[in-house]
């Protein structure tokens, strides 16, 4: 006979309390900078400059948002640029990755592992290093300082990750479905478009979230490959604001908070698909 341990209920109460405390502290850590940014963006510049700093705004004001965002044509232009780039890159990247992932998952063709490895190795080099060669290449191709160069580069950078994610996804879809389509008379490609691709939807959505977050938040390349304001992206815009005007935290945080919103909204909408996409593609693949 063995001694009975203390009853379940007592153990779980202590455990639950510690869990809640842990989560609370972690959440504070996670949200603190963002919360602080939001609060600051709602204070007047004078109040921001106060030291000791105030916590909640004494006078709630939207002047920062008006000044930095809503009435600021340049900022809105940056948002537009980034949005265009994101959409175009998402389409391009998903097209390339979906086909490649399907090829890799279904067929064992010669050189597939070499190709995959080569593809993934592009993820291992710091962006900094490729900046100069990319600059030279883009100048030669005549696309330097345009939106197009960013579209191409981001697509290429994110394709390896997407291929890896979608490959896992394709593996979970039974091959018999495609075989049935081919027996029904469709070509390989036809079977892919009609059968596999629709089933790939959660993976594609998850991939879209990844792409969106990565491009929207990217700074280095946007800074290096685009100089003029015409094609500038949002993060570079925030950075430029920083250095040009000196640090005006109230307006800076307003700009930054506005920049955060699209990603958060997209994530909020696609959260389920994202998590599902990640578990199927990343875990089982």
């Amino acid at each position, binding site marked *: *006979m*063995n001694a*009975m*341990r203390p*009853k*379940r*209920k007592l153990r779980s109460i202590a455990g639950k309390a510690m869990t809640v405390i842990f989560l609370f502290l972690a959440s504070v850590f996670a949200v603190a900078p963002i919360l602080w940014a939001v609060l600051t963006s709602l204070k007047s510049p004078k109040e921001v400059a106060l030291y000791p700093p105030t916590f909640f705004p004494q006078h709630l004001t939207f002047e920062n948002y008006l000044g930095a965002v809503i009435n600021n044509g340049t900022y809105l232009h940056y948002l537009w640029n980034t949005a265009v780039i994101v959409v175009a890159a998402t389409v391009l990247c998903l097209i390339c990755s979906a086909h490649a992932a399907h090829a890799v998952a279904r067929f064992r063709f010669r050189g597939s592992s070499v190709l995959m490895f080569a593809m993934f190795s592009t993820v291992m080099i710091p962006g900094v290093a490729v900046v100069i060669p990319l600059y030279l290449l883009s100048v030669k191709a005549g696309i330097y300082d345009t939106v197009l160069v960013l579209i191409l580069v981001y697509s290429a950078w994110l394709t390896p990750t997407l291929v890896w994610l979608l490959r896992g996804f394709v593996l979970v879809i039974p091959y018999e479905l495609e075989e049935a389509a081919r027996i029904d008379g469709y070509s390989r490609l036809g079977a892919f478009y009609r059968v596999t691709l629709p089933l790939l939807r959660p993976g594609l959505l998850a991939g879209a979230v990844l792409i969106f977050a990565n491009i929207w938040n990217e700074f280095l390349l946007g800074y290096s490959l685009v100089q003029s304001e015409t094609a500038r992206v949002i993060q570079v815009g925030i950075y430029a604001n920083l250095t040009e005007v000196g640090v005006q935290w109230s307006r800076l945080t307003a700009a930054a908070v506005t920049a955060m919103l699209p990603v958060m909204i997209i994530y909020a909408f696609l959260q389920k698909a994202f998590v599902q996409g990640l578990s199927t593609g990343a875990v089982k693949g």
Partner: protein
Amino acid sequence: MTVAVSLRHVRKKFGTVEVIHDVDLDIAPGEFVVLVGPSGCGKSTLLRMIAGLEDVSVGEIRIDGSLVNDIDPADRDIAMVFQSYALYPHMTVRENLAFGLNARGFNAATKTKKINEVAAVLGLESLLARYPRNLSGGQQQRVAMGRAMVRNPRVFLFDEPLSNLDAKLRAQMRVEVKALHRRLRTTAIYVTHDQIEAMTMADRIVLMRAGHIEQIGTPLELYDRPASVFVAQFIGSPTMNMLQGRAKLNNAGYVLETEDGLHFPLRENAQVHDGQPIILGLRPEHLKPSDRGVSCIVEIVEPLGREILLYGRCGAASVCVAPGSRLAIEPGMTIDLDYDVANACIFDVETERNVRNGD
């Protein structure tokens, strides 16, 4: 009689939905009890409550007399074999078997001895170094049982362990599990939806339906004296023939009169009254082709090898007859069916219960 496991007024609610209604059950030490019933009847839930994996909403569960409602599964000294075997994929067979022992702090020598004993009994000696993914279904099943056995628990719990095996293997494993139980004499509670497993393995059967216990008894008790229509039709294959009609008193005694006027004799002391709507239950093997009796047109003859099965009609009612041997009967023939009235079950139509039990 000492009781190994007892359930008193046990109810289970999921949210506002009650799925187990007031269950009382006593299981004797060393008994092999089978919880059987259709999907959703609550048998697995009941088993999991005994295991401690589900909370008890109302009522008491006792093991060896001690209340275990709030005791963690790990401390109840019971072992469970899962339908999916639930073997740890990253451990070898030996490590799987040792896992439960490790948690209890036996020394190395004792552990090895116990593992080797169990492996010998189940025929696993050559598999000890393999990983679960390299084992066949039957082998994985045995490892799952070994994992339960090695801890020498007070009660074995089985949750449909043979469901994932093919028919032939299942038949083989049924025999092995029963032989094992005879050898170990540990109290066992076994859940299945397969009435054959229930009939062949149980000391007693607990037949459940929609959260209630429909009947408890030995296999033959449920077979010969089913308490209700449900029990009669669940146990036994092919299913018991059910003939509907009314009880009618004539000079020979009571008979069942069907809608189209056929008469089926009832036993002498049948507890029915004239005009009562009843169902007459006759097992296929109790209907015998004879030279006098109820007329039946044969529609289908199924040759099973050692015998044939006949499907036909007595008037409007479909019947199945199992004569027990190979007779020269062809589809389209008309035969007369006779039966021993003592073998027939009579059910009241409204309550669906066996009239012998009194309603």
